[in-house]
């Protein structure tokens, strides 16, 4: 089942690459819809009350090394996989107008990317995880490098070098862990559950954690390793930006959640404050830089730095609300930032400019666009009733229990967030319609509505009734928090019973 969801996109990618160009659009979209259809039963078949990995597939692969093909899914992977399979058809549908050359290559790479990302979220063997992690990079590199803007090659190479450099550090640390397993247990294994059983000296935990943390922090991206992100977003085609912000950045935070933190809990205690500090800097710095952008796409890119800072803050709060909120915020960001990039793409296709100053007064010309843009803006800034609020609230709640001062500083990010988004909205949508070129703008077409409305729907659903999502996130988070707590009784991170409010605990449902 999980193999099907992981490998089907890769197989279909090869098939789409062989299609004739004139049916590539239909073929690519159909392929992505097939993958979505195959992934949906996971939602229904998944048992939210079970905290262990489900649909597990475990087959020996390279037996000499103890490497196995081990896939499994908990609530967090489930939601991230569905986010991936849900966004891919949207991206391809949006690409019908934006992608001017070689759609079949574009669709094939997008599908290959989808498969690799799904594999990253499902792999329970560090070797397998590393392979998928690296595989994600190649399609993304070509998507930006071939279909991107003017400085696309620079952006693609920068993305590649940053990520590959981090990955190599991660490889060294994982190999040290692998060797440690051999020393302690006597057998070779790259299986995550096996590696979690090791007890490592804090000093070795520390350097291994730093290696993994750098690799994941580049992907997140955390300040000060974020500089590849604005370049990549500005140069990427719309679909590339959507998948980059929507899913790829979550690979970094997911890496922290699934690997770096559970594997090295003592190092988390030691370096947690540093990471919280960087997360808060990211929140505020990202927001402030977003405030001064005159390019709307760059603004959205920097808003990602800020939002992902929130996610990291929640994760390192190490308590129920913080971590749950952080996972939920990963999904929110996937929905709202994806929608923002799509909207920017819609405007760019019509006017070929992303300068905020070139717009103004658009509400009068394209009211449907303005409405969707407004809803998504509100979702992004965390207006109650929409998805962003739930995540940010829980993160701040969790963060406040552990680190009040940094959390108060981070809350200013919410205000700055409202400021840059609303100011940008105001400059683009309201005011006098001065620019002649904007007077003939076409409003959203049926196709554009088809791919935007699902995201709007989710923004509402996750804001009004987040329970189905939280129910699936909670068991996984409980396991995570329990593992953290058992390692630091008595440390500032220990938070006891009062940590998880009753409305979040499992018994309440």
């Amino acid at each position, binding site marked *: 089942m999980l193999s099907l969801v992981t490998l089907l996109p890769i197989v279909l990618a090869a098939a789409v690459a062989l299609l004739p160009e004139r049916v590539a659009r239909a073929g690519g979209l159909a392929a992505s819809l097939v993958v979505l259809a195959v992934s949906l039963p996971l939602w229904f078949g998944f048992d939210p009350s079970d905290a262990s990995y489900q649909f597990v597939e475990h087959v020996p692969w390279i037996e*000499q*090394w103890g490497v196995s093909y081990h896939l499994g899914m908990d609530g967090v992977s489930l939601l991230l996989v569905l986010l991936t399979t849900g966004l891919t058809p949207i991206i391809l549908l949006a690409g019908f107008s934006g992608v001017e050359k070689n759609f079949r290559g574009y669709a094939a790479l997008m599908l290959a990317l989808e498969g690799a990302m799904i594999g990253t979220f499902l792999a329970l063997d560090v070797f397998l995880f590393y392979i998928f992690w690296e595989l994600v990079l*190649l399609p993304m590199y070509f998507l930006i490098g071939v279909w991107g803007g003017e400085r696309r090659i620079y952006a*693609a*190479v920068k993305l590649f070098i940053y990520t*590959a450099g981090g990955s190599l550090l991660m490889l060294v640390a994982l*190999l040290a862990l692998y*060797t440690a397993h051999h020393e302690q247990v006597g057998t070779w294994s790259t299986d995550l559950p096996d590696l979690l059983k090791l007890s490592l000296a804090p000093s070795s935990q520390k350097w291994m954690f730093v290696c993994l943390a750098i690799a994941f922090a580049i992907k997140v991206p955390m300040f000060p390793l974020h500089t590849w992100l604005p370049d990549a977003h500005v140069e990427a085609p719309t679909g590339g930006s959507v998948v980059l912000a929507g899913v790829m950045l979550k690979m970094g935070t997911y890496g922290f959640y699934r690997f770096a933190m559970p594997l090295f809990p003592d190092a988390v205690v030691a370096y947690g404050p540093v990471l919280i500090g960087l997360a808060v800097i990211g929140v505020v710095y990202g927001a402030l830089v977003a405030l001064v952008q005159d390019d709307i796409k760059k603004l959205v890119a920097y808003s990602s730095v800020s939002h992902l800072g929130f996610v990291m803050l929640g994760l390192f709060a190490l308590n129920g609300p913080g971590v749950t909120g952080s996972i939920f915020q990963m999904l929110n960001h996937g929905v709202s930032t994806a929608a923002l990039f799509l909207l920017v793409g819609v405007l760019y296709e019509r006017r070929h400019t992303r300068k905020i100053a070139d717009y103004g007064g658009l509400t009068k010309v394209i009211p449907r666009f303005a409405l969707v843009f407004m809803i998504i803006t509100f979702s992004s800034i965390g207006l109650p009733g929409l998805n962003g609020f739930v995540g940010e609230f829980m993160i701040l709640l969790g963060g406040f229990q552990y680190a009040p001062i940094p959390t108060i500083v981070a809350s200013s990010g919410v205000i700055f967030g409202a400021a840059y988004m609303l100011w940008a909205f105001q400059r683009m949508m309201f005011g006098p319609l001065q620019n002649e070129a904007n007077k003939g703008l076409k409003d959203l077409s049926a196709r554009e509505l088809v791919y935007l409305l699902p995201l709007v729907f989710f923004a509402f659903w996750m804001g009004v009734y987040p329970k189905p999502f939280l129910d699936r996130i909670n068991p996984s988070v409980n396991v995570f928090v329990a593992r953290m707590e058992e390692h630091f009784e008595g440390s500032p991170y220990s938070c006891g019973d009062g940590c998880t409010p009753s409305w979040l605990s499992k018994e309440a449902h």
Partner: protein
Amino acid sequence: MGSAPPVLDSVILAAPLMLLALMGVVLMVAAAVFRPMPRLPFWGASCLTVATTLVLVALGSGKPATEAFSGMLRIDAYGNFFAAVVLVSGLFSLLISDSYMERIGVRVGEFYSLVLFALCGMLGMVYSNDLMMTFISLEVMSIAVYVLCAIKRSDDRAVESGFKYFILGAFSSAILLYGVAFVYGATGSTALPAIAHTLREGGGEAAGILALGGALLLVGFGFKVASVPFHMWAPDVYQGAPTAVTALMASGVKAASIAAFGRVVIGAMGDDASNWNGALWWMAAATMLVGNLAALAQNDLKRIFAYSGIAHAGYLMMALSSVAAGGAAENGAIGSLAFYMLAYVLMNAGAFAVLALMTTSEGDDATDIDRLAGLGRSHPFLAAGLSVCLISLAGLPPTMGFIGKFYLFSAAIGAGEVGLAFVGAIGAAAGVYYYLRPMVYMYMREGSPDMAVDGRARLALGLTSALLLIFGLMPSAILQWANASMASVLG
């Protein structure tokens, strides 16, 4: 019945070497008789010889290790593995050379004869169990390759390449020979097992002489594998030599030298770890860094691959350093050396198959990276195949290069060489940049590259890239074979 005389036994055991030498002589004579050279018979005969030799090596594998010619050669799984690697490299070089040599206007039968002699020398190196044998085999290989470099006599750069390689190579051979002499002086033998025995018994008579001999050996081998600081010759020689010869130099010569180097480290001098490991560590670290960093600034593909070859020599020396650091049986350092060598030969063979097609209509090599622009559109097959080789060279999954790097790094960390693994990781991260550059040109820039048409080069590329992917996803069989070689050399 009585047993056969031992020499005959030895000849049978060394059949692969004998066959190569014999056919080398036959082709040399034939080249003098048949002028101008009929292309197909010469090419066919040499391919067939190498393929038959490969079969002979394969037939010999699985047998227990035996010594031949009074212990001069040791026919074991380690030797068989590297012999197969060397022969695969020879086969791929031959596959691209017939039409390539025709394109550059060199139609001499001696070419094939020299390739066979070079391969014979390489096989001698990988099986050699005695420093004298190592030296003689190395000279057989080297002299053939010196001539091959300059085989296009009308081309000044090729002549310069051959001459440069010859002068520096002769110099380094002399240094190696000095090293052998000093080691002999200190231990009383040139046979690897005897040297190891003396060292285990508490070293030879004079520690100073032994250290000097060891240092000279390091310099000699360091030159042959193009390790920093003895790497300077490689870029110029690689660039000037005909591409088909460069392909052989970059893979076969390197594999044979590493194998011989490995035998000396593992079989003899490894016990003298205090002297060896420090030097190996620094050479490996410097080679990985300098090779990768210098490649960043190159614009000629052959020079890029020359520096890439230097960097890879560094990775391989990291494995040797892990061996010397001890616990070789535990950490699989020798297995990783063998596995990575095969991966390296395959990815280089594929890449050079494309480079061999980059000749101009005047018959000159033109391997500037610009000439790849637009290849993705005009020649999708070549571009895809070259990309697989480059991704593998960069050590990214799902290719054999990744499995090889994983193995190398894990062996190094298992041997406690975490620092060296970090240096390697930094080097490899820099390496990603220059391996991506050809892909940038092929897929992201416009151009109309003109490439020669040659089905056999395409076959070589298709085969290597397919093997790189297959062994990248299912490495178990090769790993098992590589690990068997590890067991045999330690036994």
